[in-house]
């Protein structure tokens, strides 16, 4: 349980609307939840990873319309510092009810900002819906570029979708060409900060979602907080999201748990290793977890 965090319910789910599904990464849960929340006033804007000036280089963006949310669909496997806009959202945009999507580390940063609002004046009470996405690792843009252009021999501008799953990093283009490389090749391009990361399924989000655990086109969804539960149930009722029980779904929570355990255990031992207890000559590196 520790590995999957606390949750009130878990579902196999997808967006109820074809337009959202057309270009979303998995079941379009993030986009559907934000679109529903925006339409019904649960949020008045959401911080998402918008398209940047280069292909697949995400740029944090504050979406205040459904069109803007749609433009930000899909996973960019590169760092999108979404928290950078959290204060801006309350200032320049004047949002009182903020939605934000983020990797587990970004959701951790968000919760820290709420409990320790050191440089975050008037932010803590303005977070209305935090959507977390599962995350095994992330890549600096140049790393991603190298993986696509060098290892996959594909021009990044022509890529229509990237995907990580079943041990492979896959690249799709218009013509349906599909290059795949084993994940083992990608490891050296990961940002080092990911190696001390102790969260896989965004344990501190209101709702967290990812592809692992459910069939293609569907998402695994953990509903975690009271705010998340209220919003999710209403979105299901209103038909924005189709949710089904996880019972009997293959590969199901078993795989999610397995991956979460692998990631967290590996990173825990890496943090230990940074202590270099076995090498008297080496000084320990800093441990961020107190």
């Amino acid at each position: 349980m520790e590995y999957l965090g606390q949750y009130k319910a878990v579902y196999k789910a997808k967006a109820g609307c074809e337009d959202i599904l057309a270009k979303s990464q998995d079941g379009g849960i993030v986009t559907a939840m934000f679109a529903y929340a925006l339409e019904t006033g649960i949020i008045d804007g959401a911080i998402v990873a918008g398209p940047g000036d280069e292909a697949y280089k995400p740029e944090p963006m504050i979406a205040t319309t459904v069109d803007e949310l749609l433009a930000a669909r899909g996973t960019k496997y590169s760092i999108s510092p979404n928290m950078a806009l959290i204060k801006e959202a309350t200032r320049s945009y004047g949002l009182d009810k903020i939605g934000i999507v983020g990797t587990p580390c970004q959701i951790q940063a968000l919760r820290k900002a709420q409990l320790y609002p050191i440089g975050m004046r008037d932010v803590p009470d303005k977070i209305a819906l935090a959507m977390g996405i599962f995350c095994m690792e992330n890549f600096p843009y140049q790393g991603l570029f190298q993986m696509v252009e060098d290892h996959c021999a594909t021009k990044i501008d022509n890529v229509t979708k990237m995907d990580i799953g079943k041990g492979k990093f896959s690249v799709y283009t218009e013509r349906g060409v599909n290059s795949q490389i084993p994940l083992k090749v990608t490891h050296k391009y990961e940002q080092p900060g990911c190696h001390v990361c102790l969260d896989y399924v965004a344990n501190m989000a209101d709702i967290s979602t990812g592809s692992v655990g459910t069939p293609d086109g569907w998402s695994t969804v953990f509903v975690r907080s009271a705010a998340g539960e209220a919003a999710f149930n209403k979105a299901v009722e209103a038909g924005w999201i189709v949710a089904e029980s996880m019972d009997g779904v293959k590969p199901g929570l078993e795989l999610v748990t397995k991956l979460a355990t692998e990631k967290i255990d590996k990173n825990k031992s890496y943090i230990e290793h940074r202590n270099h207890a076995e090498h008297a000559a080496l000084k320990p590196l800093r441990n961020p977890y107190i």
Partner: protein
Amino acid sequence: MGLFDKFKSLLFGKGDVSEGTQDEKPVASKQDEPVSAMHKSPVNEAKPADMKVEQKPIIQKPKEEKPVADKITVGHVHMSGCTGCLVSLADNYEGLLTILDKYADLVYCLTLADVRHIPKMDVALVEGSVCLNDECSMEEILETRENATIVVALGGCACYGNTTRFCRGGQQNQPQHEAFLPIGDLIKVDVYIPACAPTPQQIRNVCLMAYLLLKGNDEQKALATAYLTPLMNLAAAGTEACGCDLMTEVINQGLCCGCGSCAAACTVRAVTMQYGKPQVERDLCIKCGACYAQCPRSFFSFDVCGQYESITNLITEVMKP
């Protein structure tokens, strides 16, 4: 969860509380006032159950309202600061009144409490750095340390020197004032609240946690300790901070996850995100320490942050007038 549920029931178990007494609240209650003169009713049931609340006869028309027996005493000590930190404290608005009503007596505070000399107090919030050329400030910072149980460096100036690091004297009135030190260079400091200005919400949280630390039961003390530990560690870590800490303590240590919190935290917008990592414009940085302290990879407690929902609810509940 257990800890917080228990904690919550301790605080609210017997229902609430003190209706509409704010207006009659004296600005500063004197500590040595005879207890019998204080209005003790309604006995504040928003307090922890195990607190000693002496049953006193209800005084029908009290001259002064003091609904809570066991508040902590807090002072705001003003050194070389711009008063922005004090404004930030006051920017809790009605929240400040709630704090003063239920949890803390402001026993010393420039402009808000008319007291000349630094009295004995539980918590001293010190704003500003100390100028070595200013004998009075030197005396006052020592007096503060002697008279306060917990010394909190409030804001970037007190913690790290902040903008006063850049003072070279020559200002009107006191042209000779040129050597400004963060208070931790002169006395032992217990807790840091970095940033310029520190946020009203962060000051509020520290005040509430200090209250629990001093007046709570064992479990409440445990929560307060867990919450305050990182801020105590910051105080123990030193008196220098800068945007460069992101580089030396986070990126160079292989810890940065590219979340962007540092960029959001910086008041002077010295931090931008380049290729997912912070880039600090060093000429803009005023050395307030907010970016590093805000970073989830400077410190992160799963015990505290993991309970964000219950703690947030709790703070909201506790801050109800």
